[in-house]
C-alpha cells in the first residue's frame, strides 16, 4: 500500500500545481476578455466617472499581477473573496450550487454507470449479434444528438403530458424522493449523453481481452459465457473502464451548462457562464478551481482504483 500512498501524495502535489496554473490561465483569460466588471455591469450607460468609481471601489484599477497576487493570497488563507456582482462571499454563493451540481452528477451517474456497464457487458457477450449492433447504433445516435436537443425531446415526451416537471425547482424541505422525481429529466438527459461512451469502452475493453489465453482457459474449464465475461474478463478490463467512467463523471460535474439552462437547474455551470459574462472574476476563479479540482480528484481516484483493481500493482512480489 505504501506505494499507493506515495502515488496519491505525488498526484495531489501535481494536482495543486495544476490548479495553480489553471487559476493563472483563467485569470489571464478573463483579463483578455473585452471589458471588465465595471463595463459589463454598466453597459454603455457607463459614464467614465461611474466606471472609475466601481473600479476604485473593487480594486479593479490595480495592475493585473497585483490583483492576482492578492487574490491568490486570499485563497491560500481560505478566503475566496466576495462576488463583484452582489458582494456576497463567493464560498456562500458556491456551496449550495456545488451541492446541486454534485447531486445531479451522482444521480445521472447512478443511472448511467450501471446501465452502460450492463449494456457494454451484454454487447460484449453477444458481440456482433443484432443486439450488439442495434445498441451500438442507438448509442452512437444518442451521442450525436446535441444535449439540448435530447433534453427537448425528453420534455416533449415526458413533461408536456405532465409526467415529470420540465423545470427543476428545488425548494427547501422537500423530501429526497420528491427531489429525485423533480430532477429526473435532467438526470435522464445526462444519462443518455454519457452512456454511449462508457458502454462502448466497456464493450471494447472486454472484447479486447477475449483473445487472452486465460479467457480460453476459463472456457476450457467449462465456465459459462456470462461467467467468463463477468469473472474473468471484467476484472481485467476494469482499468480502462474506470478511466472512462471518471472522465464522464468529470464531464457530469463540469460540462452540464446546457442541461442546467434547459431545465433551469441551479448548478455551478450556469453560475460560471453568468459570471464570465459579468466578468465577476472571483466567482469565475472559484468555480474554475472547483471544476479543475473535480477533474484532478476524479483522475486521481480513477488511478487509485485502477491500481487497487490490479493485483500486479497491489501485491508486489
Amino acid at each position: 500500500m505504501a506505494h499507493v500512498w506515495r502515488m496519491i501524495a505525488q498526484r495531489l502535489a501535481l494536482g495543486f500545481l495544476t490548479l495553480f496554473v489553471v487559476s493563472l490561465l483563467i485569470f489571464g483569460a478573463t483579463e483578455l476578455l473585452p471589458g471588465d466588471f465595471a463595463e459589463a455591469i454598466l453597459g454603455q450607460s457607463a459614464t467614465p466617472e461611474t466606471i472609475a468609481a466601481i473600479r476604485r471601489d473593487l480594486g479593479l484599477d490595480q495592475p493585473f499581477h497585483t490583483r492576482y497576487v492578492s487574490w491568490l493570497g486570499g485563497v491560500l488563507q481560505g478566503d475566496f473573496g466576495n462576488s463583484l456582482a452582489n458582494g456576497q462571499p463567493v464560498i456562500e454563493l458556491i456551496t449550495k450550487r456545488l451541492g446541486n451540481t454534485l447531486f445531479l452528477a451522482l444521480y445521472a451517474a447512478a443511472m448511467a454507470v450501471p446501465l452502460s456497464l450492463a449494456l457494454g457487458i451484454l454487447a460484449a457477450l453477444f458481440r456482433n449479434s443484432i443486439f450488439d449492433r442495434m445498441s451500438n447504433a442507438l448509442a452512437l445516435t444518442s451521442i450525436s444528438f446535441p444535449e439540448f436537443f435530447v433534453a427537448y425531446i425528453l420534455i416533449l415526451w415526458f413533461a408536456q403530458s405532465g409526467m415529470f416537471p420540465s423545470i427543476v425547482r428545488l425548494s427547501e424541505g422537500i423530501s429526497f424522493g420528491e427531489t429525485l422525481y423533480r430532477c429526473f429529466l435532467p438526470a435522464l438527459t445526462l444519462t443518455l449523453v454519457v452512456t454511449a461512451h462508457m458502454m462502448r469502452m466497456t464493450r471494447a475493453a472486454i472484447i479486447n481481452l477475449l483473445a487472452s489465453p486465460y479467457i480460453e482457459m476459463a472456457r476450457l474449464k467449462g465456465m459459462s459465457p456470462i461467467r467468463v465475461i463477468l469473472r474473468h474478463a471484467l476484472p481485467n478490463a476494469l482499468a480502462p473502464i474506470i478511466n472512462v467512467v471518471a472522465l464522464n463523471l468529470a464531464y457530469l460535474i463540469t460540462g452540464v451548462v446546457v442541461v442546467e439552462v434547459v431545465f433551469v437547474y441551479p448548478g455551478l455551470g450556469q453560475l460560471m457562464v453568468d459570471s464570465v459574462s459579468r466578468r465577476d472574476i472571483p466567482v469565475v476563479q472559484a468555480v474554475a478551481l472547483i471544476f479543475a479540482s473535480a477533474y484532478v480528484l476524479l483522475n486521481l481516484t480513477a488511478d487509485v482504483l485502477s491500481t487497487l483493481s490490479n493485483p500486479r500493482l497491489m501485491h508486489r512480489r
Partner: protein
Amino acid sequence: MADQNNAQDRLLTIRNLWIEGQSEDKWSPIIKGVDLDLNRGEVLGLIGESGAGKSTLGLAAMGFTRDGCRISDGTVEFDGIDLRNAQAGERRALLGKRIAYVAQSAAASFNPAHKLIDQYSEAPVVHGVMSKQQAETDATSLYEQMQLPDPGQIGFRYPHQVSGGQLQRAMTAMAMACRPDLIIFDEPTTALDVTTQIEVLAAIRNIVKEFNTAAIYITHDLAVVAQMADRIKVLLKGEEVEEADTRTMLSSPQEDYTKSLWAVRSYARAEQEETDKGTPVVSVRNVTAGYGDAIVLDDVSFDFYQGRTVAVVGESGSGKSTAARVITGLLPPKKGEVLFDGKVMPADYRSRDRDQLRQVQMIYQMADTALNPKLRLRELIGRPAQMYLGLKGKALEERVRSLLDLIELEPDQYIDRLPSELSGGQKQRIGIARALAAEPKFIICDEVTSALDQLVAEGILRLLDNLQSEFNLGYMFITHDLATVRAIADDVVVMQQGRVVEQGRKAAMFQPPHHPYTELLLSSVPEMDPDWLSELLKSRAAAG
C-alpha cells in the same frame, strides 16, 4: 502400457476428424481426417512442428475449437458422449470436470486478477464437485504433491507473484482439481528453462500416474515426449504420419519425416581450428551493469573474434541479454567498458557515430516484435543499406534482392510482403538479412532459434554458419539451449546470476570436469532415452 484394443478401457475415440480454419474469407482444412484412440490411464504424445495441428487436435479432443475454426467432419466421442454434437451446456459440464487442459504458458493462462486458490477452486465449485472449503484443502494437498514450496500459502498468491515453473505446476494441479479422466497438456514446459523443465516434467508424470489419468501430451520436443508418453503420434500438416508406442517409435521410426525429425539433433558444425585470433573485434572489459540499484552484471569480461562464434549460456536472469544491451550501448555500464577493434566505444549508443552503430548489429529472439509489422521487406531490409551505405533507387533494390537471395528467399516473391505474410523461420531470416544489410563485423544473436521448431531452427543455424564463413563475422550467440551450443559454438561462456562461471573452447566445455552449474545445465538437457528422466531423478536423489 494399456492394451489398445480393449474397448472397455476406451476413453476417447476420434474418427476421421476434419477441422477447418478461416483465413481471409476462405475455410481451409487444418486437420485432415485424423483418427485417435485413447484408453483410460494412457498417455499419448502428439508431436509435430508448429502448424501441424497438434493443439487444434488436442482441443478437439475436448470438443472445443478456437474462434475461426470449425469441425467439418468426423466424430469425437468421449466416454460414450458425442462431443461434436453435444449441447453447449452438456459439453461445459464435462470441461474442467472430466476433461482438463494445461496450457503452454501458465503465466498467460492464469487470470492475473485472481489468486491461484480461487482459480483452483472455480471448476470444482461451479461443477458442484466440492465446496470451496474442501477445494482449498484439496488444493494444499495437490500443491504439496506437485512439490510446490509452502503449499499451504502459495495458493493465496497472485499469478505474477509465482515463478514460471511453479505456475506450470500449479496449473497442472488446477487441472487435477476435479480428478478428470483426461488431461490435455499443450506444450506445458516449452517456455521453461531446462533446469526448471525437469521438475515440472517429473511432477506431471507423478501425478498422472497417481490418479491414473489419461493424457494427451502435445510437444515439439522429442526428448520430452520420450519421457512422458506411452505412445507417440506424429503429425505433419494436419495428417497423421505414424503412430507407435514410444520405444518402438524412438528406436525405429518408419517414415522419412519422422526420421528427419530425429536427425535434427545430430547437427553440429565442424570444429574450427584455433588460429591466431588477433585483436578481438569486441571486448567486454570488467563490466558491471544493472537497472537502478539492482546489479545484473557483476564484473564481467569476455572477447569476441571475427569469424568465430561465442555462445553465452545461462538460465533466464543470468545476465546474458543484459550483456548484449551493454555491448549495443542501450544500457551504459556502471563500471567497465566495451572495446571495438581495440578502441573504447562510447557507452551510450546515442553517442556512437554511424559507423560504430553499423558495425554491431543485433538479431532478436522474437522476430514478431523485432520487425515492424507495417513495413514491407523492401524497406525493412533496405533501410540499413540506405542509411549506412547511402544506396538509392536501383542500387538499393539490387542490394535488397541480393540479401534476399542470401537468406534463401525468392526476391520477386517476397520483396513486397509484410512480416505477417511470412512464417516464423522466414521472419527470423529477415532479421538476419537486416543485420547483414549494414555490413557489420559483429552480430549479436539473442536466442534466435528458441522460438522456432527444430527443423526450422536448424536451417537458421546453417544459414548463420554459412554467412559467418562468407563474411568473416563475429557472433555473440545467446542461448539457454545446450543443443544449440553444441551445434554452432566455437567458444562458450557460462553465466549464472550475473557472473561468468566458466568460459573456454566448446570441446573443453563439454568434457568433464565441469563447474557444478555447467554440470547441472548439461545434465538437464533431455535425452531421447525414455528412461532418461527416471535415471536422472534417481541419480540426483542419490546425490543430494
